């Protein structure tokens, strides 16, 4: 298998170099057979990467512990589901996973892009092949080859880190990778547009769905990562501003900025340079995230083991940045805006400031992540930049962004009149003030949550108003029932109303995040039968009674399960179990021995209002007396709900069909009539 795997990697490398060299040589102009060869090289790279992946999976499933990677990340007693996910659990396997998924996306882009974009496709193939070649080369030449063999064959492997033995880890890393990797396709289209000088909105139409796919995968990946951190790490939260978490947020922020600003280019022919810069920046940030994760240059709980692989990524990042922005600079004069902004009070201006905030927050997160390095370079002193710093700097920016989420859709395109503003803002502002007043009357005094929930009321008002007016218009115009009108409203304008559903998801995230300001926790040592009480932010009194600790053996671990009886306001409410797990493998003598440190499984009961979160910290001197941490975490359920809402909205937005984009309408053949525009415009103002 290792021979086949190595052979496949070399084949992928050579096919990739062939495709990229042909594409960038420009010899395919007017020579369809050369263009075809470029396209076929993309498919060949994909086939070679698939063969390499199958070889690795075969080694994992066959427990070929002579393969260093298989030995390092699996064991005979590893549950079969985790054998599957062991593929991407380590540095080397994840690089191969990256290469195979990228080659798949590259092949799909070639196969699925409509023929009218054919002049762009050889360049797209060239860029995707070049990036794939880089990943394959890193595997082959930097000591990160997953097909490396050991000089002997161990009886069993070291096993998978217990924290990675969680269903979330089977989906979270692939989702994040899919998000990171698919960014390459929009980047390839942007480069193709610049190289071919075809800088109309064609490249945007060709790649917009790819950008949405990428954004959706990254959103799902980030949310799943939060879920994994919450249920597996046991610290009671879901976001810690860890450098690797930050690295995943950075491209998401710039991508979200692009998805907004691209609408201005499509509708008004503005922000062409800015949009290209955002696509390039997003790709660079995805490579930067990979560098952070794999270099160990910044301390993080998520990092792969320290290796020199990271520096390959740094060099690649530098190379791509110089090449892309130089190319952009040379095409600068071709990227003039079609029209000028007409007013500061317009949707275009609102989108511009929304972009400024997205990119500003991305800069702020990047700045905080890199500040320890900067500080050490300037002052020679090591410092830590942790959650208190990020919260202080980013919470105000996040609130501003939330406000703009509500403001943007209320302002008309081109220029908003005072009457228009008054009519549009009355209900949303009223709903925001109402929510704020009710919460203040209920005794909420913390400024940040109060502002968050008040602004969430405002944004809810905006979204509700948009849906209400759209539905009402359809009911009047087409005599439809309200549910039918609402369904058709969304179906006929998926991008707009799917976008509002995404906004709804975002505001639910914000509402849920603010809830964590009210979490309560306490530690307690309990003998069996002893209880401890905890008052929740919603006014309930929880009584936790320690039942006892039972021990048993599972497939690859010994489990010590501590059980707690829960009562809410004196009424029994079931039991929650938290566990300590000691994983083991079998050594050469056939006896079991501990692998990894003991891990903790949190006991969680999730509710709409609050989560009960119990951590069994350990037993006192080997007795059934248990040390616990009890948490009441408000509104956490809504974080996961927000993820579903956002995904649902994203799917609606990217679903094929659903009306012609405005840009296409604008570029459609002229209707053949001429009227005095002033008269017509006056008509629309009324």
């Amino acid at each position: 298998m290792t021979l086949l795997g190595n052979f496949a990697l070399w084949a992928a490398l050579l096919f990739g170099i062939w495709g990229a060299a042909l594409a960038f040589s420009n010899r395919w102009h007017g020579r369809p057979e050369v263009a075809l060869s470029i396209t076929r090289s993309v498919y060949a790279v994909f086939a070679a990467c698939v063969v390499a992946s199958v070889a690795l999976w075969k080694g994992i499933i066959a427990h070929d512990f002579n393969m260093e990677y298989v030995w390092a990340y699996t064991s005979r007693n590893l549950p079969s589901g985790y054998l599957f996910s062991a593929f991407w659990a380590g540095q080397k396997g994840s690089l191969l996973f990256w290469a195979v998924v990228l080659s798949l996306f590259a092949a799909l882009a070639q196969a699925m892009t409509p023929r009218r974009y054919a002049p762009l496709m050889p360049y797209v193939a060239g860029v995707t092949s070049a990036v794939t070649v880089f990943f394959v080369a890193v595997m082959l030449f930097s000591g990160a080859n997953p097909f490396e063999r050991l000089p002997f064959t161990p009886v069993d492997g070291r096993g998978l880190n217990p924290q990675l033995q969680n269903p979330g880890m089977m989906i979270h890393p692939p989702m994040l990778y899919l998000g990171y990797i698919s960014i390459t396709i929009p980047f390839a289209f942007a480069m193709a547009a610049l190289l071919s000088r075809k800088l109309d909105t064609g490249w945007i139409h060709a790649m917009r769905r790819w950008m949405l796919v990428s954004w959706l995968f990254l959103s799902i990946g980030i949310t799943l990562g939060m879920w994994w951190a919450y249920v597996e790490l046991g610290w009671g939260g879901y976001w810690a501003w860890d450098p690797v978490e930050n690295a995943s947020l950075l491209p998401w922020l710039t991508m979200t900025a692009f998805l907004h600003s691209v609408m201005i280019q499509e509708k008004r022919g503005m922000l062409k340079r800015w949009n290209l810069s955002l696509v390039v920046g997003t790709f660079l940030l995805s490579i930067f995230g990979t560098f952070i994760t794999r270099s160990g240059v910044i301390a993080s709980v998520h990092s792969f083991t320290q290796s020199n692989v990271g520096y390959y990524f740094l060099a690649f990042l530098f190379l791509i940045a110089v090449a892309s922005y130089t190319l952009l600079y040379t095409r600068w004069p071709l990227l003039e805006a079609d029209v000028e902004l007409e007013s500061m009070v317009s949707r275009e201006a609102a989108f511009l400031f929304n972009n400024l905030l997205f990119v500003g927050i991305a800069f702020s997160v990047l700045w905080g992540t890199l500040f320890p390095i900067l500080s050490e370079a300037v002052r020679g002193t090591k410092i830590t930049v942790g959650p208190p710093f990020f919260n202080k700097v980013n919470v105000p920016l996040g609130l501003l962004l939330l406000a703009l989420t509500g403001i943007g859709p209320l302002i008309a395109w081109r220029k908003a009149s005072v009457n228009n503003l008054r009519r549009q803002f009355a209900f949303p502002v009223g709903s925001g003030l109402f929510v704020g007043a009710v919460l203040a009357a209920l005794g909420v005094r913390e400024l940040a949550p109060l502002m968050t929930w008040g602004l969430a009321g405002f944004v809810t008002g905006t979204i509700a108003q948009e849906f209400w007016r759209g539905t009402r218009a359809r009911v009047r115009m087409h005599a439809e029932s309200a549910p039918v009108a609402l369904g058709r409203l969304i179906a006929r304008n998926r991008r707009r109303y799917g976008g509002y559903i995404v906004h709804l998801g975002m505001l639910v995230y914000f509402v849920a995040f603010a809830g964590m300001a009210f979490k309560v926790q306490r530690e307690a040592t309990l003998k069996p039968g002893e209880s401890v009480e905890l008052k929740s932010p919603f006014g309930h009194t929880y009584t936790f009674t320690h039942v006892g600790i039972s021990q048993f053996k599972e497939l690859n671990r010994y489990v010590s399960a501590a059980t707690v009886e829960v009562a809410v306001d004196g009424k029994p409410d079931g039991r929650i179990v938290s566990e300590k797990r000691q994983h083991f493998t079998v050594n050469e003598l056939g006896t079991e021995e501990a692998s990894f440190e003991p891990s903790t499984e949190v006991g969680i009961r999730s509710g709409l209002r609050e989560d009960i979160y119990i951590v069994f910290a350990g037993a006192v001197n080997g007795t059934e007396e248990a040390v616990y941490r009890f948490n009441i975490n408000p509104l956490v359920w809504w974080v996961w709900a927000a993820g579903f809402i956002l995904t649902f909205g994203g799917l609606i937005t990217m679903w094929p069909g659903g009306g012609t984009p405005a840009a296409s309408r604008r570029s459609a053949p002229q209707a053949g009539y001429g009227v005095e525009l002033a008269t017509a415009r006056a008509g629309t103002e009324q």
Partner: protein
Amino acid sequence: MRRRAFLSFQQDTTRQAPVASPRAGQGDVGTLFNPDVAGRPRAPTVEGDNDALVRNTELKLQCTCGCTLDIFTCRTTDFTCTYSPALHREVVALFAEGKTSEQVIAAFVDKYGEKILMAPKPEGFNIAGYVVPGAAILIVGGIVAWVIRRRVRRSAEDAAEQALAPLPPAATGTDAELERLNRELAEMEK
């Protein structure tokens, strides 16, 4: 079955597990079947562990084990860490000496260096850390607003000049065509 299977594995005959655990207030508690697989032995919680002042102070100090977490989170999460419990005891001891939270933090900085802080103090070069992102957004936002305002004014002036120029004869349209144009313009305004 599982439990029986477990009992046959490395059973410690000197340690007799109780058949049923005693309930509260009934004296001694039973021992575990195999304490070796139940994680690091824990000391019972003391009242200082739940002290809000201690907790809030520990949230501002980093554990030195390399986990990147604060002392409180590390000691209540990573139960294999031996650093955070020791640091916790240091914090409790300093409070017992009558020190304030600020003095405890200062004592930690003296002993372990500035890296022990979860966020740098906003002084000297560190101020840049806090101020630069917001300032950058304000400055860029100001420049963008200024550029937009200037361009809007220039466009308005151009429009005024064009308004003074004699208009070419306007094309006319039927009511139906006007209605259609209005509809399409309204659609574009969305």
